[in-house]
């Protein structure tokens, strides 16, 4: 047992941070990731369901673009997801982990519904819609500002705080529905179906067009706000380092509260668009998990509103496609969810290879010798 001890056993690979990568190389890696994801998915499809993967991918595309209605639905889904993603982005950029978008959207929707339900038949539609809009935005702001004030004043943990506010919002919505619908099955159904009071009107015969235009406008506005405004600069500094922000004279508390007002307001707007422009009803599933999916959309796009159009398209496309393949191939929706999961996994995973490089220890040693 007296062999010479080798130098500490070295792992096979080393991981090192890359300085930066040329843009086309980064996109090449992303492209490879998508191709790899499609190959893995094809294997899963063949092994689990013995379907032809090309046909399955065809059905996914058909699910999003198969008819005019499907395309509009896709754009509507993108718009809603994008709207909520835009809402969480300024807070995230400030490193304020707002996990409460779901609740802020719900409260916004609830405020719209309160107006729609109680004063729907007494006001001209335009005025009613305006009141609903204002009420929703205020509701969202209140739900966003509470955790912000606590964070600014007492440095409470905003992730837990916003997360718990979601449950309060869910219970408030359940309570309201129980009051409004004392019998039946705790389901509101379409509200004002006969009068359409409080429904956003169709534009050029398209019922989702107003939603889509509002979100498109918002995307550009958010891009400019984050990139070119003083506010946008301040919140980026607060995100990088609160001490630096204080040193250069930024009122950190003010920035936190102001940014969460903006975040909450846009969530409230999303709630309004979902109630008035889409569902014309409310349930505790109004946001449908988009409050959390939005986090992924925002991160994947590195908080760039324009890139978020692409990431939210990707998620909405996968969701619609998943539903379509479940129906056309008679599969359980879980199979479709597995495929979606694999694709998202690869896309997120490839960011690792863009930010870091993996070198085998042997080649590193060679480099050293040189």
């Amino acid at each position, binding site marked *: 047992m007296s062999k010479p001890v080798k130098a500490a056993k070295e792992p096979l690979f080393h991981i090192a941070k890359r300085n930066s990568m040329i843009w086309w190389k980064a996109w090449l890696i992303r492209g490879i990731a998508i191709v790899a994801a499609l190959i893995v998915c094809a294997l899963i499809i063949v092994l689990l369901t*013995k379907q032809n993967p090309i046909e399955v991918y065809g059905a996914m595309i058909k699910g999003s673009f198969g008819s005019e*209605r499907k395309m509009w639905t896709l754009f509507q889904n993108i718009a809603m997801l994008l709207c909520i993603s835009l809402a969480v982005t300024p807070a995230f950029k400030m490193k304020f982990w707002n996990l409460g978008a779901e609740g802020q959207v719900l409260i916004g929707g609830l405020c719209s519904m309160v107006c729609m339900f109680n004063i729907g038949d007494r006001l001209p539609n335009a005025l009613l819609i305006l009141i609903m809009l204002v009420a929703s935005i205020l509701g969202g702001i209140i739900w966003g500002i509470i955790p912000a004030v606590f964070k600014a004043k007492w440095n409470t943990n905003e992730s837990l705080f916003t997360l718990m506010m979601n449950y309060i919002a869910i219970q408030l919505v359940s309570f309201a529905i129980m009051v409004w619908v004392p019998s*039946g099955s705790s389901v509101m*159904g*379409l509200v004002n179906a006969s009068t359409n009071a409080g429904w956003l009107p169709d534009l050029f015969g398209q019922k989702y067009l107003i939603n889509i235009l509002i979100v498109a406008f918002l995307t550009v506005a958010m891009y400019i706000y984050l990139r070119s405004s003083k506010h946008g600069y301040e919140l980026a500094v607060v995100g990088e380092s609160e001490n630096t922000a204080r040193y250069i004279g930024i009122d950190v508390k003010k920035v936190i509260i102001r940014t969460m007002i903006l975040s909450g307001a846009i969530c409230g707007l999303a709630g309004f668009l979902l109630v008035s422009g889409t569902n014309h009803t409310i349930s505790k*599933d109004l946001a449908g998990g988009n409050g959390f999916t939005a986090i992924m959309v925002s991160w994947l796009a590195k908080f760039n509103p324009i890139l978020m159009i692409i990431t939210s398209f990707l998620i909405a496309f996968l969701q619609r496609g998943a539903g379509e393949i*479940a129906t*056309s191939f008679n599969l*359980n*929706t879980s199979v479709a969810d597995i495929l979606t999961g694999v694709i998202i996994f690869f896309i997120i995973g490839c960011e690792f290879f863009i930010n870091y490089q993996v070198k085998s220890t042997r080649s590193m040693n060679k480099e050293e010798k040189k």
Partner: protein
Amino acid sequence: MKKILAILMVLALVFCTFAACSKKEDTSADQAATDQAKTDTESSGTDYSKIKIGLICLHDENSTYDNNFIQAMKEVQKELNLSDEQVLIKMNIPESDACYTAAAELADAGCNIVFADSFGHESYMLQAAKEFKDVQFCHATGTTAHTEKLDNFHNAFAAIYEGRYLAGVAAGMKLNEMIKDGKITADKAKIGYVGAFPYAEVKSGYTSFFLGARSVCESATMDVVYTNSWFDIALEREAALNLINSGCVLISQHADSEGAPKACEEKGVPDVSYNISTIPMGPNTALISSKIDWAPYYKLVIDAVAKGTSIDTDYVGTFATGSVKLTELNDKVAAEGTQAKLDEVEAQLKAGTLHVFDTAKFTVGGKTLDNYKADVDSDDKFTPDTEVVKDGYFHESEFRSAPYFDVIIDGITEK
């Protein structure tokens, strides 16, 4: 070491692949068998080639409620020899604009019949029905078809209260057996009921179950607790355990998870369930279940569309139509003579000589229920509008298919 591990993992992967392949072959053999079955039944005369059906489900096969709709649809597909292109099933469709979109997409895809299974789908189905006049929209558990009066919008339900009554008879016989064996005294014959929500559908269900039990065991009483959820394993289990601890000697349920049946098996308390047979999860305690079979209704509608005849605005499936069923009676648990008694009572129900909600058989606040106005026609204010007691019984599911019996009768306590 790492190399060995890597080789092992590769081997495992290869093995898994082969396992998956061989399983695949099995299923293709199954497929061949189904194809054979299809050709066997191809001789009924009606031309179903132009039929295309869409089914919208709130959840997927994991929910016993939705699974009941899906399996019935697959049965009908097989029986009528419909191809996979003719049956489109959309699962996990929420009770929102997504339901309208799903219905519209099915209509776009050429479906001439669209079903939806959840109460909250109704207003979206109605919205689609107004837009697609050539497509028949059939909605289970809904309440508005008879007031909306559209030619292509229909509601359907089943007289499941008759099934529950019958299941109650089996429960009552079990109580009698327990009394006879000296396990309990007559005054301790208390049933526990795990209900989902305090609505007519649940109240009508537990009342008919209780009346069935009391028709054979006069001293029976019942406690009801609500979970306020259609599917919550933990809550349903907890509710059942609480009921058992408070002295209930038999449990029944109207909620969609296995929470209560499993709790009963643990505690050795007999259990009557709903929608599926729970014998596999409670071999020593599961007594019987009542269930709705949707296949007869599907077939009726498909036939009507194929032949161009009209569909009932409100359809109520019964024992006679094969829509109301009892699952297998567990002989290991059931009291002696239960099957004979069930056959006898079923015959009476079918013949119409026995009415479940016979007002001579129950009291409300110590008095007989001589008249009762139910909220049959849905409106925002939930105003009672229709007299439903006449000829000595409460006419459940006659003025519309969905239940509206929502009275708490003497002997039942809501906790």
